[in-house]
């Protein structure tokens, strides 16, 4: 009887262990079990061995067990160059620009592609964790058979192709033959490089993975927010501090974006920075002082400030938007450092989800505070009905600067990966006729991007400060939660 109780207790504790096994090696069970078994008689050893065997089998079948993902039979992800992904980004940038994708929506496309490529490449990576169990609602993904050989570039291409097709269909209502052309080009090259059975198996696995990822993507509330009742712009009668679109033809941009499922944040409210400068139109008020500063920059803008304002405008319809601009910068660094495919997909995933969460935090604050833009302030309260900022005022509220939030998150995460004082030439906008700009550090670039919004006449300085603070909060939340590498660091560059 005593022995029976002991065995029940042991099985219970083992079961409990199994329920929390994601990061525990299955061989640990064997060791623990064998130590305990020393106490009991020979006959029972057999029963315990069977129980342990079943538990081990259960743990090895669990699809989300990070410790079992690595597939050492196949050529490792790090053996490949990141070119296949860089080609995907080029096609995606083009569609984001031409189809006038709004910046928050673009952030979703970039982040999902980053996650898809990362999870597709992961079994070929040693020392990295899956995002399963880390990203909100991502509870399960299929895993390849560890006993078989796969070709990770084929898996990546197929997963990214299917995910991109879904994202473009979903976010901009159309799918493009460019994606199919690129997929066929990449897969044809891989078909020649690996055995046919490996190719077929990899393609099939890519499809299974993409199917599951798409299921998860579809539950991010994006579709629901399309059917929310129309956003009613709050009345400015007796509330002159409230925002209204500055162009009659513009609808408010994504007013329900805070409802989109975040990746790491609990919600958009998590990093909210309350407005501390009380609205006023009195000439000697603090608020008016900030407005005067915007006009001062406008009147005395230097040539460099003008160039900065235009360079970081990142207008939808002309460019890949701010998240795309940072993806370009990320790719310049990836190429400059000659990152391999493993390092590249890890960087895309980390920075991609960071930027996407930055938009959720930023949009929460924007529509909660709902602050008037400098253009409206100048025209209504300063008797300057003709005043126009250099950069077109976008159709969403002023506070806090979204460019500052997004750029800060991207720059801070890139600094984690590539280090401080990392310099490169940013040629993102050569195709739209702008000269390349030298970046001496990601943080400096983020600060420049932030200030560009004051030079351009879109933001008050306090909104830049708040945006940077919000960005730092989002970045820290991600860094605190993410377990990208098994050694709990973000040491992707292996420096």
């Amino acid at each position, binding site marked *: 009887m005593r022995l029976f109780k002991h065995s029940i207790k042991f099985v219970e504790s083992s079961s409990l262990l199994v329920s929390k096994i994601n990061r525990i090696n299955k061989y640990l069970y064997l060791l623990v079990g064998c130590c305990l078994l020393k106490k009991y008689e020979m006959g029972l050893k057999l029963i315990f061995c069977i129980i342990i065997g079943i538990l081990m089998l259960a743990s090895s079948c669990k699809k989300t067990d990070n410790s079992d993902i690595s597939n050492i039979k196949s050529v490792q992800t790090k053996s490949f160059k990141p070119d296949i992904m860089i080609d995907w980004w080029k096609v995606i940038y083009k569609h984001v620009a031409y189809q*006038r994708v709004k910046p928050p929506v673009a952030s979703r496309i970039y982040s999902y592609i980053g996650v898809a490529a990362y999870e597709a490449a992961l079994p070929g990576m040693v020392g990295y964790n899956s995002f399963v169990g880390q990203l909100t609602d991502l509870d399960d993904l299929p895993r390849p058979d560890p006993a078989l050989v796969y070709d990770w570039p084929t898996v990546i291409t197929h997963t990214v192709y299917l995910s991109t097709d879904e994202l473009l269909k979903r976010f901009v209502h159309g799918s493009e033959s460019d994606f199919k052309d690129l997929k066929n080009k990449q897969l044809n090259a891989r078909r020649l490089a690996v055995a046919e059975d490996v190719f077929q198996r990899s393609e099939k696995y890519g499809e299974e993975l993409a199917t599951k990822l798409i299921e998860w993507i579809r539950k991010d509330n994006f579709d629901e927010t399309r059917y929310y009742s129309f956003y009613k712009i709050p009345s400015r009668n007796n509330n002159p501090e409230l925002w209204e679109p500055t162009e009659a033809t513009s609808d408010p941009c994504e007013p329900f974006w805070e409802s989109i499922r975040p990746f790491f944040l609990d919600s958009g409210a998590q990093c909210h920075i309350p407005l501390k400068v009380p609205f006023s139109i009195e000439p000697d008020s603090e608020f008016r002082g900030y407005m005067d500063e915007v006009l001062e920059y406008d009147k005395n803008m230097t*040539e460099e400030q003008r160039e900065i304002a235009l360079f970081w405008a990142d*207008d939808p*319809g*002309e460019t890949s938007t701010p998240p795309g601009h940072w993806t370009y910068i990320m790719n310049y660094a990836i190429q400059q450092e000659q990152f391999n495919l493993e390092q590249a997909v890890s960087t895309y995933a980390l920075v991609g989800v960071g930027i996407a969460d930055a938009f959720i935090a930023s949009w929460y604050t924007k529509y909660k505070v709902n602050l008037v833009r400098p253009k409206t302030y100048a025209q209504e309260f300063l008797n300057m009905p*003709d005043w126009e900022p*250099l950069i077109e005022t976008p159709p969403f509220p002023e506070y806090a600067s979204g460019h500052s939030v997004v750029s800060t998150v991207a720059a801070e995460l890139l600094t984690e990966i590539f280090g401080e004082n990392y310099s490169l030439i940013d040629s993102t906008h050569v195709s739209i006729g*702008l000269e390349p700009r030298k970046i001496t550090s990601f943080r400096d670039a983020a600060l420049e991007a932030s200030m560009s919004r004051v030079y351009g006449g879109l933001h008050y300085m306090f909104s830049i400060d708040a945006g940077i603070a919000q960005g730092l909060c989002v970045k820290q939340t991600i860094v605190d939660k993410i377990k990208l590498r098994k050694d709990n660091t973000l040491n992707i560059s292996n420096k």
Partner: protein
Amino acid sequence: MMFNRFIYTFVILFIACYSSFSQVINKGILEENHKGTLENSINNAGGELSHEWIFQSIDGVKSRYKLKLTSGESSKEYDVRIRNLITTMYIAVRLTDGEGKVTTLTSVYDKGDKWQRVKMAANKECLRKEAKWARYNQIMSLDELLNNIILQIDTNLMLGCYI
């Protein structure tokens, strides 16, 4: 029958789009010279200010021009860069003052909503009192865009300041 309707709709839409955008988007138009005359120029004491946009080169979306402003016997030339993008057209006119400082006038044209803004942070010494950089709506041609730029330059700047 359905197919014919589809073709008909397509042709109508094409004509509508083409007629509204053709003047500003037509690729060749940014490889040609343009000129015009401003009557009652402030800088020419009520006389004429003629402007000639002399095409230099084109590279992708970027066209280079020389802007020649002539009032009476004297004329001056300024570098111009036009960026003709999908939804926006930027025109930048670089003006150099007597001390060699370059200041750029920027015109932004929204092709969809058809408005134009002209902006410049000119030196105080070169700026007229009450200078206002205007916005124009319903701009339908490149000639209108260029004429508005000249009007803004003449209204807001003392051209004698620039070499």
